[in-house]
């Protein structure tokens, strides 16, 4: 039900023309489109109704994001949904009551900043107490749609251990915060965000400064990891459909190229990759919703989905011949986007490491 109405809405409101406009245009997100998403309750999908949200489950999120991926929906929907969860779990009551309804209502857009810019002798991002507030210095990179967002949820290290990490909420308009657009071949609107002694109120820390909230931060990020799996499954599913349609209609040697065994086997390989990606994403989503500390299944899903969906998209473009690599054709939009998402959150390598740790300790 959610899927059918989501699909119908997105087919109408988000043709690929809009995706192309966002890629080449100034704005990272058509404001009118975001408002419509808010009317459907999607930015506030995981926010409880008492705070103005939809009160949805992780599996609801998986379904919605599969459909969003299917049309390459631009904008930080995943980041806003997950950012809201971060605020919900660890923000003060006052912060929650102030911010969550605005996020659900579409007035406040949130993005996530996890990776620190690697420059010179390594990355740094420091948050220190400053009077009755906090002071932030450093630089985050690959922050999606930062220019469209009012808030950024940033991870930061509180110590040297792997669990010594916490979350900070910063307003994009804060003095000392600057955005630098990056240019990625994925077509995603990514930014480097520099924090030059940015002052934020104490309550902007989601959690306490001295506390490490490793487990909490991990849980929040895993929502994003699963959300992106769902998105990739949806996107790969659509470009796979395009490829199957194409090989059925394109004729060479007097017959559709779908009649050739080598083409058939490539399609079969894509179908298997995609089906497994669906299974593993749905399982991870279900598990995460029921057991919030689940992590192994999430990494298993991400490790598979990254590679499988990229294989599917690559193969789908390839089967179109040169058409698959021309600007005009739509298949390449899917390939570039999926390549971008597959590289985020540490990529396959990171998640394989997590899987290995789960096996070997």
């Amino acid at each position, binding site marked *: 039900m959610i899927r059918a109405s989501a699909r119908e809405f997105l087919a109408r409101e988000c043709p690929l023309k809009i995706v192309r406009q966002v890629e080449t245009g100034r704005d990272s997100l058509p404001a009118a489109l975001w408002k419509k998403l808010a009317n459907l309750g999607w930015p506030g999908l995981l926010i409880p109704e008492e705070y103005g949200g939809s009160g949805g489950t992780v599996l609801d999120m998986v379904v919605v994001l599969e459909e969003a991926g299917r049309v390459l929906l631009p904008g930080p929907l995943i980041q806003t949904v997950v950012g809201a969860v971060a605020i919900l779990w660890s923000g003060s009551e006052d912060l929650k009551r102030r911010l969550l309804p605005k996020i659900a209502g579409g007035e406040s857009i949130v993005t996530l900043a996890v990776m620190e810019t690697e420059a010179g002798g390594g990355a740094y991002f420091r948050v220190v107490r400053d009077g009755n507030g906090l002071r932030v210095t450093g630089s985050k990179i690959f922050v999606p749609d930062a220019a469209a967002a009012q808030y950024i949820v940033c991870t930061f290290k509180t110590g040297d251990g792997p669990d010594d990490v916490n979350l900070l909420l910063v307003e994009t308009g804060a003095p000392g915060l600057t955005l630098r657009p990056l240019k990625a*071949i994925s077509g995603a609107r990514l930014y480097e965000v520099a924090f030059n002694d940015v002052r934020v109120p104490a309550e902007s820390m989601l959690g306490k400064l001295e506390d490490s909230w490793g487990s909490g931060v991990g849980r929040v990020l895993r929502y994003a990891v699963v959300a992106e799996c769902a998105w990739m499954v949806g996107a790969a599913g659509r470009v796979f459909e395009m490829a199957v349609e194409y090989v059925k209609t394109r004729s060479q040697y007097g017959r559709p190229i779908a009649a050739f065994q080598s083409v058939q086997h490539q399609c079969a390989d894509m179908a298997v990759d995609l089906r497994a990606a669906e299974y593993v994403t749905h399982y991870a989503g279900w598990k995460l919703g029921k057991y919030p500390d689940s992590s192994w299944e999430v990494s298993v899903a991400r490790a598979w989905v990254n590679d499988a969906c990229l294989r599917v998209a690559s193969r789908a473009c390839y089967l179109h011949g040169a058409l698959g690599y021309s600007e005009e054709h739509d298949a390449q939009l899917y390939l570039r986007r999926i390549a971008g998402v597959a590289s985020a959150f540490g*990529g396959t390598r990171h998640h394989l490491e997590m899987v290995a740790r789960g096996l070997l300790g």
Partner: protein
Amino acid sequence: MWRVGTSRYEEEVATPGEEAFYRSFQRKLGAKGLLSTWWPVEYGGRGHSKIESAILREELAYYGAPGLFGPTYELFVPMMLAFGTEEQKRRFLPPLARGEWIFCQGFSEPDAGSDLASLKSRAVEKEDGYVLDGHKVWVSAARICDWGFFLFRTDEKATRHRGLSMFLVELSAPGITRKTVNDYAGLPAWQEIFFDGVRVPKENLLGGKNNGWQVAMYALNHERSGLVWLGTCRRALDRLVTYVKERKTLAEDSSIREKLAALAVEVETARLACYYVASMQDRGVIPVHEASMAKILTCHSSIHLAEAGLEIMGEYGLLDTGSPRAPFDGGVARTYLSYPMWVLGGGSLEIQKEVIARLGLGLPKLSD
């Protein structure tokens, strides 16, 4: 070796500044005799062997040097030397040795890609020449080219590959219209070329009437050794190694070490296959399935290198030329975008496998 910065292959030349640089660099290579090293000396060659020329080719590609455009120097020149009349050789080869003209290749049509022999563009013989009508697509780098060589059907009654002829056409000829088609990196990689009553003199027919297929296949086999892409692969591998060496955690990660080692093995194997093809050419033996094998090995190398670049560099590997923080000025991202077009051009992997299976191993054709 001179450094030329970011690779700008012919298909990527987008601005007038880039085109000016391309042309001037090509002429510099020409002035040094480096565009014609293996040609017979009477046409501007230096009498170098194919292997020596291959070494030069690979190194130029490694440094991203423009100038030795594949269709001109790896397709047109061999075809001309093998099938051209003395007049044709004297007319076309010296300017190419100097780097004055660029030739593009126009074979594919909207309904004739892998099945090239089904092409429909026609050439009708007249008293003073031929009249060409038709439509060619995916003509690489045609935007900056002066001339092209094209397959047209000269015998409507002959089936498939039997009635085809190779024509040399100056792209400024009346009746030709061109439409630039961008690739998915937004670069003007191809053109569609429309022929509407284009007249060419008989002197522009290469290799004899209805012999075009032989001429084309000779050229494609010559091109398939893939040294350009091999040079690019080696550069991609060296960049990855440099990147990893600079980061201790990566350099000590056994999965990365294993991956780089596997990539190096693939590149070395592909390199030997390419040079074997060059050695065959030096011995006067025409490579067929050996060329297809070299192409497959080079393609696999480039596919795996492009993917490894993304995997190891993560999101940094996707940053494009001109982006802040782009490693190697976007070289990794550019390679990732361009390798599929090399895999498809000159015959997809599936076509190469057909050549090996049928012509190399003698396996039977799938019966209709």
